C-alpha cells in the first residue's frame, strides 16, 4: 500500500514537472520549431529566405499571402507591410539577434520571433485598418520604440501580386 502511494506521489511530481515544462513558452516553441536548425541569425542577409530582397508580402499557395519579416534590435523589417482584408496571411518571421514578439494592436494575434528558428502562423484580418505592431518582448534599450505597422486594405484595393514580386508599404 505504501509502495503504491509512493509511486502515485512520484507520478504526480513528474506530471507537475512536465506540465511546468509545457507551460514555459519560449523554450518548447524554440525546440518544436527546430531551434538552432533554422536560419543562422548572424547570416540572414547572405542566403536563405530572409535575404532582404525576399522580405515583404509574397504570393502564397492557394490564393493566400506569405509575409516574411525579420525582427532585430530595434526595428522590424520591413517596417510597414500592406495586406488585403479577408485573405489568409501566413507570417514567417525570425529574429536576427534576441527574442522579439510581434503583437498586432487591436487584434488578439501575436507571434514570437526567435533567433535560429522560423515562427509561422496564419491570420486572417477581417476588416481593413491600420495596426501598429509593437514589440511585446523586452529586447534591449530601444525596445519601447520598436514598432512596425500593418496596413490592411480592402481586397479590391490590393493589386494582385506579380510572380516574384515582394510588396511592402513603399511599393503599394
Amino acid at each position, binding site marked *: 500500500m505504501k509502495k503504491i502511494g509512493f509511486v502515485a506521489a512520484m507520478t504526480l511530481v513528474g506530471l507537475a514537472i512536465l506540465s511546468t515544462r509545457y507551460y514555459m513558452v519560449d523554450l518548447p516553441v524554440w525546440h518544436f520549431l527546430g531551434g538552432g536548425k533554422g536560419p543562422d541569425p548572424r547570416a540572414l542577409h547572405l542566403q536563405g529566405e530572409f535575404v532582404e530582397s525576399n522580405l515583404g508580402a509574397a504570393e502564397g499557395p492557394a490564393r493566400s499571402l506569405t509575409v516574411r519579416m525579420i525582427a532585430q534590435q530595434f526595428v522590424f523589417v520591413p*517596417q510597414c507591410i500592406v495586406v488585403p482584408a479577408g485573405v489568409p496571411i501566413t507570417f514567417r518571421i525570425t529574429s536576427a539577434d534576441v527574442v522579439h514578439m510581434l503583437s498586432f494592436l487591436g487584434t488578439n494575434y501575436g507571434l514570437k520571433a526567435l533567433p535560429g528558428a522560423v515562427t509561422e502562423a496564419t491570420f486572417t484580418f477581417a476588416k481593413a485598418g491600420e495596426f501598429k505592431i509593437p514589440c511585446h518582448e523586452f529586447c534591449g534599450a*530601444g525596445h519601447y*520604440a520598436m514598432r512596425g505597422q500593418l496596413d490592411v486594405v480592402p481586397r479590391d484595393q490590393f493589386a494582385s501580386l506579380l510572380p516574384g514580386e515582394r510588396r511592402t508599404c513603399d511599393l503599394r
Partner: protein
Amino acid sequence: MIYASQAPRLQIGARWLGTLVVLFAITVLLLGRGSSAQSENSEPPVRVPSNVAWTEETLAIVSSGDAFRGLLLARRCNHCHGEEGFSSVPAFPNLAGEDRLSFWKQMQDFRSGKRTSPVMQGIAEGFSARASADLAAYYAMLPTASDPQDTRAFPQVMQDPSRASRAIHLIIFGDGQRGIPPCQSCHGPVSYVKGAPPLATQNGNYLEQQLEHFSNGYRTNDINVGMRSIARQLTAEEKTAVSEYYGAGLGPGVNSR
C-alpha cells in the same frame, strides 16, 4: 538459323531503346521547363547588402588586429582623416575611437563594392582583411579627448540651436509612434549593437550625408535593412538636427567632453 532468330529480338530492342530515349527526352524537357519556370516565378533576384556576417571567424579576424602595424599603415589615411584620427574637413569621418567591428566592416564593404564611394573604394582595395583589422585596432586605441593644437574640425557650431531639443529627444527617446528607436540604444553609450559605430565624436556633415544616403538608397550596406528603415522615417529637419547635435560634440558618449 542464328540470324533468323536474332533479327526480331534486335528489332524489339531497338524499339524499346527508341521509346526510352523519347521518354527520357520528354522528361528532361518537362523538368527543365518546370524548374526554370519556378525559379523565374517565385524567387526575386537575391540582393546581399554586405558580405560580412558576425560569425566567430569574422570576430577572430577583427580582434587579432595589431595596433602597431595599424599605426604604420595609417600614414596612408592621415591626409584626410587626420594625424590623430580627427579630420580637418567636416565632410570626412573622424576615426579616433572608432569601433573595431564597424571600421572593419566598412573597409570590407568598400573593397567588395557593397558601399559606394569614389574615393574610398579605390583606397580600400589596397588593404587586406588583415591590414584592415590592424587599422581598426589602431584607430580604436586613439583617444577622443579634445586637442586645441590640432587642426581638427570636430566640435562644429550648431547652425540652429533651437533644433537641439528635437535632436536630444530623438537621441535619447527616439520616436515610438513612428518606430524610430533612440540613437543611443545602438550607437552607445547606453548599449551597442555589432556594426554600429559610436557617434559622440563624429562630424556633423558626414552624419547628415550618410543619413541622407541611407534614406535615398545610395548607401545600402546595412545588414538586414536596419539603418535604411530608420533613416527613411526621419524628416530632413530631424536628420540635420541629430547630425548637428552630434557634430557639436553634445551627443552622449563616453569621452565626448
